[in-house]
């Protein structure tokens, strides 16, 4: 199994701001934030990928400022908590200590991984930062997203992804989809992370999906039935082919939980952790029966992205506080990464220029 394991590479998330967010940001800047550049809690959303070559972005809209978790978010979307920092000047925006900002956000995630809070409340694993500057006079909006993750050394490795459909037959796939759809929605919308319990039967028998549950069940499922069962950690994947970015923190949280749960704690733990990661890209249909009238049939399916499985190997030596770790102290987090690349593929902020949209003369001309 360990053969052909290469560095597992993740597709970075891409942040998508829509203009409604910018107009709302402008309004709050004028009436609410004024000169404050204190962090503001916001939310973003992403959908699992449903195109085989188009990744789903993390969207931030006007309703990003609505508090109260997932209220008003369609059930097809996963909610991601984020932190907005709106700088007062372009100079501030440029000079802001991005490394420190990212380090702090990542440290909070690390804390949640080591304490076990991350498995119980998986929305803590996928967070984002959004640094903005709104030039309200020229209608230019500067922004930069970060999706904090950790650069591990050595990086996690994985065998080439196996299509989910090669492991599960149609009825089992369907059971998995239904199990996922039946998961209770949390205050954070559609669960982005979850766990799957499988029974393997005796050798040669096909794998059966036994249960789909919240991520917090994964640890207990993992060791179940004397090795006749296995458990996968799963991500609703915004990436259509490669493992999506949020899987990075998921894997690390799972590794941390294993480490924590092992009674042998320090002593005889293997330095390697093996996990099975499911990148889930199944359509989750609407509920309820079709509209009463006749005349519908299933629509020709799109060339949808397919779910894949990775067997991941992580070298955790020294990651979680050396030998004597245990429940107490946590080690220093690995280095944080995650500032988004610009449209040229280099680390850098983005600029949305609405001046053409906002210029009264231009809009009048366009409206004719």
């Amino acid at each position: 199994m360990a053969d052909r394991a290469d560095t597992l590479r993740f597709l970075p998330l891409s942040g998508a701001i829509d203009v409604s967010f910018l107009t709302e940001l402008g309004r709050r800047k004028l009436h609410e934030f004024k000169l404050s550049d204190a962090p503001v809690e916001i939310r973003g959303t992403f959908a699992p990928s449903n195109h085989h070559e188009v990744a789903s972005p993390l969207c931030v809209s006007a309703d990003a400022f609505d508090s109260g978790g997932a209220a008003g978010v369609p059930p097809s979307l996963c909610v991601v908590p984020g932190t907005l920092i709106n700088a007062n000047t372009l100079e501030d925006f440029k000079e802001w200590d991005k490394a420190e900002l990212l380090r702090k956000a990542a440290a909070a995630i690390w804390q949640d991984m080591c304490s076990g809070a991350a498995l119980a409340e998986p929305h803590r694993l996928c967070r984002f930062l959004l640094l903005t500057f709104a030039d309200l006079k020229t209608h230019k909006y500067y922004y930069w997203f970060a999706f904090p993750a950790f650069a591990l050394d050595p990086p996690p490795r994985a065998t080439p992804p196996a299509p989910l459909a090669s492991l599960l037959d149609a009825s089992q796939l369907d059971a998995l989809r239904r199990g996922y759809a039946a998961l209770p929605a949390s205050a954070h919308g559609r669960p982005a992370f979850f766990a799957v319990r499988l029974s393997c039967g005796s050798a040669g028998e096909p794998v059966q999906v036994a249960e789909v549950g919240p991520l917090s069940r994964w640890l207990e499922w993992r060791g179940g039935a004397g090795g006749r069962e296995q458990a996968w950690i799963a991500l609703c994947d915004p990436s259509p082919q490669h493992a999506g970015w949020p899987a990075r923190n998921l894997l690390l949280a799972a590794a941390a939980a294993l480490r924590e749960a092992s009674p042998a704690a320090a002593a005889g733990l293997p330095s390697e952790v093996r996990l099975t990661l499911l990148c889930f890209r199944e359509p989750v249909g609407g509920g309820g029966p079709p509209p009463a009238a006749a005349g519908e049939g299933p629509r020709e399916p799109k060339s949808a992205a397919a779910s894949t499985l990775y067997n991941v190997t992580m070298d955790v030596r020294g990651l979680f506080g050396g030998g004597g770790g245990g429940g107490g102290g946590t080690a220093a987090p690995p280095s944080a990464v995650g500032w988004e690349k610009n449209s040229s593929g280099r680390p850098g902020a983005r600029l949305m220029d609405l001046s053409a949209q906002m210029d009264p003369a231009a809009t009048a001309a366009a409206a004719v």
Partner: protein
Amino acid sequence: GTAEYLTPVLTTSQFLEKGVLTPDEFVEAGDQLVLRCPTWSWQAGEPDKARPFLPPNKQYLVTRSVPCQRRAASLASGADAEMLVDGDEGEGDEGWSLTHANHKVERQEEAPDMLADAVAHMDVAGPSGAAAGGGSEDAGGADGAAGEAELEMGGMVEADDPSALGGGSGIVKTRTYDVTITYDKYYQSGRVWLYGYSESRQPLTQAQLLEDVSADHALKTVTLESHPHIAEGAGLHMSIHPCKHASVMHKLVAELQSAGREAKPPQYLFLFLKFISSVIPTIEYDYTVAVDGL
């Protein structure tokens, strides 16, 4: 406008007779769409723009970040895929041409490679060349890049990250659209609004927007206006003008019925979106439920 203000709210159903919709029927049809195609959701919009004849939290429907991989003109237009839906008031020439009614986008195998080439080219060109290097896309292709070059981080901010995928990942950057459907009280129908973003997340210009409208409709039925429920600050949205919607819907209803099928107001938006997809054939929004017999 004034005409809308003066028009009384339609209260009795005339869906079968005229293809029009009451506000209540719009809400009912919207509920079905949200239920069946969860990428759509209801929005409240700006409170001071709320229409009193619709529930406060169900003023319009939205689906966001809908990919649009190709320009409408690049669709192979076979005559067999075309179907003329006449207006039913003897205005045959003005009728809707229901091309590409199945919303199917044929993939162009070389497209991703062309994009990858363009990106590679831009990398070689370096920061200053990035703005000029977008030759593969027309006019506004490299938009925003000029302003972004100066925002790049000079020094190394982050550790080396062998786990991150860079370019050449086979993932295609596309234009995306926010698609909304409002209720038009004057025309007593749904009305579609589009706000588009380029591959590099810049708002599309009017000329660029028109590239995603089928040639049959580009200059006839598309207008740029303020969205009725969204703050003016967002700028103008492209709208498909609803003056013919009722007659087309009536025609579609008649065809369903002549095929021995039932037509009811809750189906309205599925039929409607299918017909709208002939106007914007490459914007891949979801209306999962196919309506046969058309």
